[in-house]
């Protein structure tokens, strides 16, 4: 059983990983056909993965409601929102609009989901402002440099800033194009090396945390 439960998954990872990496270097139609099939499969599997991600939320809130834990009323709201959306969505065949006419599903999307999600992130504007006033301090020389660059870019990227300080536009352009680009490039190279190392470790079974869950 250990073979089936531990070894075999590692073999699958090794074979698929090496295979798909090798595919990149092989232009032959046979190899291209393999890539087409496998990515098509991943597309469908991706749908199942999405379901998997969503269901844990399902579970957490069901438990909350059953045990009537503190704030279970909110979990009921969550369930109501979810079931309502599903019902409306199935009714509309999963389409927000049919021939340009908005369905009930589209209504839920436009008048509930869009404002809710949009506003959740819009409140951050207020918190940035308050943090700007209360805690963006030049505690060290590094932080001072950061804030100076931030102020230049903030001014250089809006019409008012360019109007008051005509140079700020060019300077912020230079910061972004040269200084920022060089740092981002170094980070990109570093992170990519890390990602390649991690992928290689996964393929060769040195890194197995992704197998996680499931009892032995």
């Amino acid at each position: 059983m250990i073979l089936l439960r531990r070894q075999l998954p590692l073999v699958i990872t090794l074979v698929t990983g090496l295979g798909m990496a090798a595919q990149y270097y092989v232009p032959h139609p046979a190899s291209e056909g393999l890539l087409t099939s496998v990515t098509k499969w991943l597309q469908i599997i991706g749908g199942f993965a999405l379901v998997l991600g969503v269901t844990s939320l399902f579970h957490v809130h069901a438990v909350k409601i059953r045990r009537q834990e503190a704030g279970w009323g909110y979990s009921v709201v969550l369930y109501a929102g979810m079931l309502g959306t599903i019902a409306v969505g199935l009714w509309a065949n999963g389409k927000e609009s049919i021939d340009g006419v908005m369905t009930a599903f589209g209504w839920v999307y436009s008048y509930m989901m869009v404002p809710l999600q949009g506003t959740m992130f819009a409140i951050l504007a207020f918190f940035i402002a308050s943090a700007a006033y209360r805690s963006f301090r030049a505690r060290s020389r590094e932080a001072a440099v950061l804030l100076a660059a931030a102020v230049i870019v903030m001014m250089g990227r809006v019409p008012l800033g360019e109007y008051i300080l005509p140079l700020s536009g060019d300077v912020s352009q230079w910061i972004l194009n040269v200084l920022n680009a060089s740092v981002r490039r170094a980070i990109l190279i570093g992170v990519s090396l890390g990602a390649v190392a991690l992928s290689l470790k996964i393929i060769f079974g040195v890194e197995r945390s992704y197998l996680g869950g499931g009892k032995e």
Partner: protein
Amino acid sequence: MPFESIVGAWVATGLTLFIFSFLYKDNPVFKVAEHLYVGVSVGYTIVKTYDTVIVHLIWKPIVENHEWMLLIPVFIGLLMLTRYVPKASWLSRYAFAFIVGVGSGLAIPRTISSFILKQVEDTIRPLLTLVPGEGVSFTWNLLSPASGVNAIIILIGVCSVLFYFFFSVEHTGPGKAVARTGVFFLMIAFGAAFGYTVMARMSLLIGRLTDLIEFSDASYGRPTLWLLVVTIGLLIVLGRRAQREPPQES
């Protein structure tokens, strides 16, 4: 104005104001809106997944076009769902092994070519330019991205930041100077990111307020104004009630 747009304006405005009430403090009105948000977006994802995956990518191709090969990913996908059956949950490992294996394999050569080779290639630039007829020259123009001086600055930036994230040698002596340079480059880039993030967040606020302004129009029945009053009223009532009840530790 169609009826559903008017109702929609009222609902959208109400939910927007409920979320904004978090600015006053964390409160039940906000929590209701927050949970509704999670519920609706999960419901939306489920519907879309059902329609796209089950109907258009699985059912139709298999049943109508007899693409039997597609049963393989369906099988792998089902294996993934065994996670919820404690006795068979180990089967889900096969699915994860497949996805992670393919994903890693696809990523390795593409990352090398797009993010390492391409970026190294562009950083290695001749510091001098050859102008036909004039000979070799060095360009000092800071505003031209391709100038010699900018090529040098980029080279210094890339190298010093790479060195900063180098953990095999102690940052002493000349290493310290290089690492310090790297830190300052990093801070400038963070500053730029900071400025841009501020810009992004402010844009979101502008977007929401634009909607609220639109919905304060008489053709919608001025939901913004009315619901603002209602939300403030709710906050006051809830605040009073919370004061009367003993505070709970959660």
